[in-house]
């Protein structure tokens, strides 16, 4: 642990200036300083100003600047405290109480939070076009939230890469991919509407199923980050 030389410490400098001001005031009280009234007032004002600025600077330095220890005793105590803090940080969220609270809150939020999604899928049941639309809107909502989380800094690093990869897997199934001549759900719906044959129905149903699987992977990737 490095020790800062006494006179290089901002706090100590501020304290010394403050003490100098107080010593000046004490000397004046003892009659050892200035005699003339004007000089006294001037000196009072200057000393008070110095003392105020020094005290304020000591506060700012303590609050905003690093405060390395000034003595070996303080260095030892700081090292012990940092070791304790490191151990506490390593515990992190793995503390049992924290896990229980987190799991309980998460379960409550999940249980209460998917009514609208269930409602949408229920409203589309038995109608292939509507189901394809609900899956597409669900993907649109998830990818919008993922982008917002990336922009807010909540989604970074390997988690962001995992979400991008999941998005790359699901997007061609939903909106199609001209490079591979793959049709998206909208194109398959149009084909189904134009020719309501067993083949177009089976194609659309298979596309919806595949998209739902990949969409759930994307949702899990966003949740797992």
């Amino acid at each position, binding site marked *: 642990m490095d020790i800062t030389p006494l006179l290089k410490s901002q706090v100590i400098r501020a304290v010394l200036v403050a003490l100098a001001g107080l010593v000046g005031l004490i000397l004046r009280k003892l009659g050892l300083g200035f005699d003339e009234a004007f000089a006294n007032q001037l000196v009072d004002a200057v000393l008070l100003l110095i003392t105020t600025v020094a005290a304020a600077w000591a506060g700012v330095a303590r609050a905003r600047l690093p405060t390395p220890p000034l003595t070996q005793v303080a260095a030892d105590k700081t090292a012990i405290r940092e070791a304790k*803090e490191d151990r*506490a*940080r390593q*515990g*992190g*969220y793995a*503390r049992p109480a*924290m896990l229980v609270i*987190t799991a309980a*809150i*998460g379960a*409550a*939020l999940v249980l*209460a*939070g*998917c*009514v*609208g*999604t269930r*409602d*949408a899928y*229920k*409203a*589309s049941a038995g109608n292939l076009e*509507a189901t394809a*639309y*609900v899956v*597409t*809107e*669900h*993907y*649109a*909502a*998830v*990818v*919008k*939230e*993922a*982008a*917002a*989380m*990336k*922009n*807010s*800094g*909540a989604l*970074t690093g390997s988690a*962001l890469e995992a*979400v*991008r990869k999941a*998005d790359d897997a699901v*997007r061609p199934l*939903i*909106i199609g991919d001209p490079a591979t001549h793959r049709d*998206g759900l*909208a194109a398959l*719906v149009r084909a189904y509407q134009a020719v309501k044959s067993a083949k177009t129905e089976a194609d659309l149903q298979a596309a919806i199923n595949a998209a739902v699987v990949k969409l759930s992977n994307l949702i899990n990737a*966003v*949740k797992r*980050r």
Partner: protein
Amino acid sequence: MNLSIALLALRGAALGLQLQGQTGASRTLNLLADSAAAGLNVDAHMAEVAAKLKAGEPIDWDDVEARIRADSTDLHSPPPG
């Protein structure tokens, strides 16, 4: 259960833990709050979709595909800053 208040409580607890120097626990609560908020936004959007379907509104495929393209491009762009 009022989810907005639950989210607010989560953020408050995370801030409290952060101020106490419990950064690990604070980060966990913040991540949970972020996920929950994202889930709530998705659910609110899906509730609107359900209402549209029930009302028999026409489906605008061009609109939803345009939104997907824009947000997917945003997701794959570098983070701001």
